[in-house]
């Protein structure tokens, strides 16, 4: 039952940093600031920070569940729920990962249509991205890790451009600190929770890491980095926007980059959006890869066969969302779904796993 990954397909454990950090970056170009500010006001950054810190617990659970010996969630499902139930649950995950990649995919196309090419047809953009995704995913997991690596490193320098909104911002906007109730802060955390997600793919690619148990620290460091980045970004956003405007801004981060000007470049947000492709492509590719991986493990379907099928579905599904309203509803759904998956489902199987392990020891 154990399906050991051959060593020449594995990646060195510290690359988990890039795999997690890149998927967490996607939220930067979204409306999370306006969502979080609705409940927590100027204390939004505390909510964002709390949320990031709470995820350490989830990562710890994942590593505990899947380590010793390394396995993926499919094996875990089988041991916990038996073969049939476990496999069905794993197949449900295909849908979950598909929806995640669809969400990232569609939102990026929307950004391009709104900010850069208003007249371009969705299908044309979607089709060229699909080709790209096919090329990367069919390269295997190591190529995907490489894309994550570059997708993290190259756009990372963008954080220095926060200097411009900071220069324009007003520290008074953050005052008074902590005048919201704890419950409000938690509510705000929940509404913006989608920004940190990206750790659930760890459930599938875990056995691809070399010595995964020993390199857990890199996953935590990635989360730390993400938390730091988002907290800084939220603080800067709060300094730059007044809260009333922020609540109705769809892409606050892009709005802030708009003011950046050099002697040879204005409208910096174009560069920002194009560079963002490097973040978006791996974030779509990894869930897609997870889909094909689950199908391979559960239904023994060859990835070469399942991948074109999944991508075709992705293309058609992306074309169905043609209005902002649709995407909005979809976003709300995604936020709920991911929240419960991370904070309910993973602890749930963790508890069952622990109980089973205890019983197993007692029986021996």
């Amino acid at each position, binding site marked *: 039952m154990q399906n050991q990954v051959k060593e020449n397909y594995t990646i060195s454990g510290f690359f988990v940093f890039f795999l997690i950090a890149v998927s967490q970056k996607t939220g930067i170009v979204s409306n999370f600031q306006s969502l979080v500010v609705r409940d927590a006001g100027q204390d939004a950054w505390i909510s964002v920070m709390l949320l990031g810190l709470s995820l350490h617990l989830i990562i710890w659970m994942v590593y505990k569940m899947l380590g010793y010996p390394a396995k993926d969630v499919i094996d875990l499902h089988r041991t916990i729920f038996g073969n049939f139930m476990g496999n069905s649950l794993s197949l449900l995950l295909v849908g979950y990962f598909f929806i995640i990649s669809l969400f990232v995919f569609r939102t990026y196309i929307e950004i391009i249509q709104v900010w850069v090419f208003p007249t371009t047809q969705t299908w044309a953009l979607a089709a060229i991205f699909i080709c790209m995704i096919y090329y990367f995913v069919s390269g295997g997991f190591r190529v995907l890790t490489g894309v994550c690596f570059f997708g993290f490193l190259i756009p990372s320098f963008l954080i220095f451009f926060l200097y411009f909104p900071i220069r324009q911002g007003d520290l008074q906007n953050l005052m008074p600190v902590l005048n919201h109730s704890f419950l409000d802060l938690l509510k705000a955390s929940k509404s913006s929770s989608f920004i940190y997600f990206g750790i659930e793919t760890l459930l599938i690619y875990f056995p691809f890491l070399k010595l995964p148990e020993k390199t857990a620290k890199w996953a935590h460091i990635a989360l730390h980095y993400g938390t730091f980045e988002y907290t800084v970004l939220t603080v800067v956003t709060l300094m730059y926007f007044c809260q009333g405007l922020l609540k109705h801004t769809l892409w606050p981060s892009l709005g802030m980059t708009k003011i950046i000007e050099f002697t040879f470049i204005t409208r910096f947000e174009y560069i920002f959006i194009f560079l963002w*492709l490097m973040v978006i492509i791996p974030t779509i590719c990894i869930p897609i890869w997870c889909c094909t991986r689950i199908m391979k493990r559960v239904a023994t379907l060859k990835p070469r066969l399942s991948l074109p099928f999944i991508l075709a579905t992705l293309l058609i599904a992306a074309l169905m969302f043609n209005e902002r309203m649709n995407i909005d509803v979809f976003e709300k759904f995604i936020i709920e779904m991911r929240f419960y998956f991370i904070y309910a489902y993973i602890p749930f199987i963790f508890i069952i796993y622990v109980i089973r392990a205890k019983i197993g020891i007692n029986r021996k």
Partner: protein
Amino acid sequence: MNSNIHKALREISKSGDFVQKTITVQGKLLHFSYYTSLINHEQFHHDLLSFIQTSNCEIENLDDLKALIPIEGIKVSSDLKQISLSLTKGSIFLQIDPHFNEGLLVDIADLQLGLRKNNNTENEYSVIGPKVGFVENLDTNMNLLRKGMITEKLIFEEHTVGSVSKTRIAIAYIEGITNPQHVNTLRQRLLDLDVDVVFDSSILEQLIADNSKTPFPLLLSTERVDRIKYSLINGEVSLLIDGSPYAISGPVTLFSFLISPEDYYLPWILGSFFRLIRYFGVAVSILGTSAYVAVLTFHYRVIPMDLLGPIIESRINVPFPPLLEVLFLEITIELLREAGSRLPTKVSQTLGIVGGIVLGQAAVQAALTSNILLIIVSLSALASFTTPIYKMSNTIRFLRFPLIFLASLWGGLGIMLGLMFILGHLMRLKSLGMPYIVPLFPFRHKDFSDSFIRSSFSLTSKRFSFTRPLSIKRYSVQKNKDTSDDYDNE
């Protein structure tokens, strides 16, 4: 088996340069068969004929004859196949009259005929450093390498490739440094190869490369002796081919192609600076014109007002969209380059002036292109020639064309898509089974000391880890530099 080899040979070769001569020595008839185009005639007359004709000994059988001739490696043979093969390699076949079923094979091939004696590395020039290059002769090339590395660990492993050309090749590596895995991979690929004629090392390079569906060269080919020495000492395996002045070396990474030997001959600060300039050149060469197309077609808002003025002014009379304008100039430059490399040196210099200056100026005055584009195109053409290895600079020049088309379709997004695609492609490439873009991915921080910059020799005392050498240390670092300042000691 034909007992009369003399006759059989006549029947096998109908070629005009196949000669059969008969001379009489002391009443015996001696028959010679050889290709007159292959043998060394001086050696034939001085070392062979004169000894036989002036000798006083009885020539009764082949052994007597063998003792007479002062040349090594004489074989007695009666195997027709072997004889005819040796003849086509430049041997001479000697028979004594009644015994037509066997004879002597004497190797007096003239391998130097028509070959140049030296090569000035004109295609991979460096101002400082040795200028000796490989030539078309395998023995000379092995001699050049052996002279520079006085060690018995330098191994040449000879094979023959090509069903018609029977080209001699030599796999060179240093025992105890080069990972045997690479030698085995290379040897296996060469032995599995079926090809008729090997014209040049580049053909072999393409045939044994890991992936042929790529514009990138997956093995390094160079005519510089110092470069191959450097590759060998770093644990790579090299391949020398008879008849080609270019040696092949691998496994290599993308970044090996941007290394020039001159980096090591200059102080490391200058060497690093020039290497960075080269990387910048690659970026300009790939992105220059496509960025122009993207910006002027879609994103003119990215240009600040002050800069937009001059650009509009220079383009105001140009009737074409940026894509056509760029393609027109790029193709002109490519034509110039192609014509320049096909024409004799003196003509091509004149052509460069006519094409470059006259055509460019005229194109601007005729309002076919803008001044600014002319600058960008010539800059990016210039930048592409900074790449030290010719094959890689071709690749880099080629890559801009898909990017130009993508830029005209999707602007900056198209360029980014193209770059991502190239990146993904690079990550999938392998050179002799090793990943192509180490030290970036897989990440090897130790190899960074000699990648984008050339660090000082005290930091590059270890070999590259991507070649997986058997011993990682090259030399120990000497600390005998006088860097002490007066300040602490005065």
